[in-house]
């Protein structure tokens, strides 16, 4: 962890001074007059980024558990589809997946008029269900692979001990296997969640207004190019920092020897 003392080294003070000068220069030399006008929109965009990230990571993780489990111990007729799914998701760009889901499916609607009559139509019309679906599947695809390793990584003795005490299978899964697998996966999970955060701007391409779309909007309206992007970069860094911190806290819940 960064301590105050570790920051008070001459070269770090110099670097911080340079950084502060850079920030000051940015504040004075660049244009920020657009901020007040766009602040409400920006807040909404940031909120939507966080919302999408949270929902898709949680759903994706829930999906990743059976995917990982199927690959780790499942019979071949479960393992093979799970592996295929993970390979396809990891093997194609997310941007393409989003488009395929949104525009690809959309291009089928005119051919089937009954879709517009259905109860689901109000949702199918929206962009966010596709975004959530695409990002959830993507996260599940990557995490399924991580969880596979994590499940197989749990020491055999841990499971045997549970068996030996007559734990029912589901209890054993819930109380022993899953928590240990998650513990194993946490370091990777943190990194992958930051990757997921970085994937959220892609949903702007299907007309969802999240942080990136707001920055684009500012650029398009005002032709100010760098300032919104810089601010956007800072926003993502802050969110990534909070994520990294949160995951470190989670990891530290079960202390590890030698750290």
């Amino acid at each position, binding site marked *: 962890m960064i301590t105050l003392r570790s920051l008070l080294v001459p070269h770090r003070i110099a670097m911080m001074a340079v950084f502060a000068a850079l920030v000051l220069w940015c504040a004075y030399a660049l244009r920020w007059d657009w901020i007040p006008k766009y602040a409400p929109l920006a807040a909404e965009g940031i909120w939507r980024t966080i919302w999408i990230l949270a929902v898709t990571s949680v759903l994706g993780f829930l999906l990743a558990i059976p995917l990982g489990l199927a690959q780790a111990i499942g019979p071949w007729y479960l393992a093979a589809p799970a592996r295929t799914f993970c390979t396809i998701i990891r093997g194609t760009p997310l941007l393409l997946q989003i488009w395929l889901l949104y525009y690809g499916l*959309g291009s089928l*609607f005119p051919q089937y008029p009954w879709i517009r009559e259905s109860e689901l139509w109000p949702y199918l*019309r929206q962009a966010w269900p596709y975004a959530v679906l695409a990002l959830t599947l993507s996260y599940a695809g990557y995490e399924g692979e991580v969880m596979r390793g994590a499940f197989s990584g749990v020491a055999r003795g841990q499971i045997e001990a549970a068996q030996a005490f007559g734990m029912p299978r589901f209890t054993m899964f819930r109380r022993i296997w899953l928590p240990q697998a998650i513990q194993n996966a946490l370091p990777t999970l943190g990194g992958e969640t930051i990757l997921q955060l970085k994937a959220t701007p892609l949903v702007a391409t299907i007309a969802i207004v999240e942080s990136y779309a707001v920055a684009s909007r500012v650029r398009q309206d005002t032709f100010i190019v760098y300032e919104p992007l810089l601010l956007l970069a800072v926003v993502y860094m802050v969110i990534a920092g909070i994520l990294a911190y949160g995951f470190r806290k989670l990891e530290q819940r079960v202390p590890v020897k030698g750290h």
Partner: protein
Amino acid sequence: QEVKIGIAAEPYPPFASLDASGNWVGWEVEIINAVCAAAELNCVITPVAWDGIIPSLTGQQIDAIMASMSITEERMQTIDFSDKYYNTPTVIVADKSADIAPTPEGLAGKILGVQASTIHQTYAQQYFTDAAEIRVYQTQDEINQDLASGRIDATQADSIAMDDFINSDAGACCEIKGAVADDPSILGSGVGAGVRKGDDALREKLNAGIAAIRADGTYDKITEGYFSSSIYGG
């Protein structure tokens, strides 16, 4: 000296689109070639994402924009424009069966799709925000798809580009519901070539080229190949 003319990388038929051999074709592409020939410029057509086309110009990746970009006050704060080379009305397009008119009342409660960084976006956000939900897309083509699939109720766009869409299979669903009320401060005074601020030499040459093809009939001949009437506008 090579002059890079930026066009939008996203197809915008019938003005500029890609054929299967990878060549850019369309009315505007022919106009670019004609203007350059008349102005004796060695032009290279350079596709750039529409969204980043102005930064590309100011960042010197391209020298001029000829991508159906309307001349507006707002843009003129950042770049300069040549004289216009076409001008067409702005219309609202929607499903044939839909009860929609090109007014705030006529769009009440509807979802209106517009392309980002266009006069249509600015206009819609100025006049229709309160009445309709405005959804912003990166390309007109995506809007057309979502219009056909029924995800949005209407779009505001350039009449000629929409003509082309309506006459295609995919656009059979829809029709022009009428032109929106004009506001020259937003909708501008036609489409011109954008150049970097202060690049008067290039601007003058392009102006001369446009004037030349207007005068010698090249402009009309190209137009005949695409449209039934002149699109130079008043």
